[in-house]
């Protein structure tokens, strides 16, 4: 991205903020081998996506302790996106499948606790799928915009 284009994004974001539109803050955990590389590809290919996601690189989605996700929500993140390798493609054989099991239980737990279950989302994006990653982030931002801000933050 050139400095000029960055400035444009900034000012349009500032405009939206001035209008009082809700800009979600999303934490995205990306696995080093697929999604992080996919995000990199999306960047170098200059694909456009909303700037709301803060990417945190982890070695594998299997490394993500469920408490990281709950802590992020507790600290005021509007949504948490977990992006990993497609099933069968995990660099460590089965880390993403373990995350899938955890994620299903976590979503169940979050729903039972009275939060919108769509605040957490799991997606697969390989290193070659910059477009899938871009679409994933865009869809996540739209979903969270519909749900509204995390109420923890308002206080």
């Amino acid at each position: 991205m050139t400095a000029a284009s960055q400035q444009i994004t900034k000012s349009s974001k500032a405009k939206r903020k001035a209008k009082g539109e809700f800009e979600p803050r999303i934490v995205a955990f990306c696995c080093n081998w697929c999604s992080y590389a996919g995000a990199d590809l999306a960047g170098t290919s200059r694909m456009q996506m909303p700037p709301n996601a803060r990417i945190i690189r982890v070695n594998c989605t299997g490394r993500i302790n469920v408490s990281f996700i709950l802590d992020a929500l507790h600290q005021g993140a509007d949504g948490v996106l977990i992006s990993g390798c497609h099933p069968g493609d995990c660099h460590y054989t089965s880390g993403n499948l373990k995350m899938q099991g955890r994620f299903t239980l976590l979503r169940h737990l979050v729903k039972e606790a009275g939060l919108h279950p769509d605040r957490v989302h799991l997606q697969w994006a390989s290193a070659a799928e910059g477009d899938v990653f871009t679409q994933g982030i865009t869809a996540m931002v739209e979903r969270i915009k519909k749900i509204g801000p995390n109420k923890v933050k308002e206080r």
Partner: protein
Amino acid sequence: MAKRIALAQLSSCWGCDQSLVDLHLGLLDVLPKLDIVFWPTVVDYKLADLEALPNRSVHIGMVEGSCRTKEDLHLLKVMREKCKTLVAWGSCSIFGGVQGLANQWDLKELLERKFIQAETVTDPRIPDENMPGFTEHITPNPQIVECDVLLPGCPPTSENTLDALTALLTNKPFDLPTKTVCDQCPMERKEKHIKKFKRNYEGNIEAGKCILDQGYLCLGFATMGLCGAQCPSVTTPCKGCFGPTPIMSDHGAKIISALGAVAEMEPEELKGSFPDPIGSFYFTDYAASYLSKMRGKERGQEH
């Protein structure tokens, strides 16, 4: 010199007192060293007696139970003022206890369910005369006032309470272990291949073998090892009543992380095995969890 001790009960089952009294003759070793100044469970003291004492005049204060009523909250604050060392005694005190599970709902819903909609109620009304009033949200006591010593358990075993009291009387530190119930458990453990989770009433649990390996939800791996693995030793799955070890930030998160690693099941099947995840994973410590704290912040609970 005998040390002055006050024991206060907030909303709870008073089982911690029961556990202390269960020391029987063992009490004879401790009692002469203690001067009881407040203990409504066994001695006729009133709140005014405690309030009349000078500040910081009591050496040891033990607080059991959580703050469900505003009177509990007052008693807790009075205890903090009067006692030099405050012990949060039992899981209710430290984590909010079973009452903490109520944080899933708002106070209004709880009161209506209990006093109006309950099937056996014949004269439905919410009591409000001569009542201290309820708190909106269960907050663990250490988040309300500073607690110097934590002693979890539902209840803490008689030995736990004796150990803590002895440590306090001899000015020794009382630290919580980072080890889990599994470290104390005598059952034989093997490589885990869990294909199906069973409810406790399904089939029979085989003695001598790890209960989790047999497909029953035993929470020993995520629970503080202070009880001597009482339940798993007699083939009863651990319910996690001692709460997470000090190095775990959230009990349920730890349990989910571990289950995801050991269960060889389809995700939907795994989800179906736990119809009530909050009740199963946060038996006594939901009020101390991230999810409950988020609800608390939404309700504007700050003490």
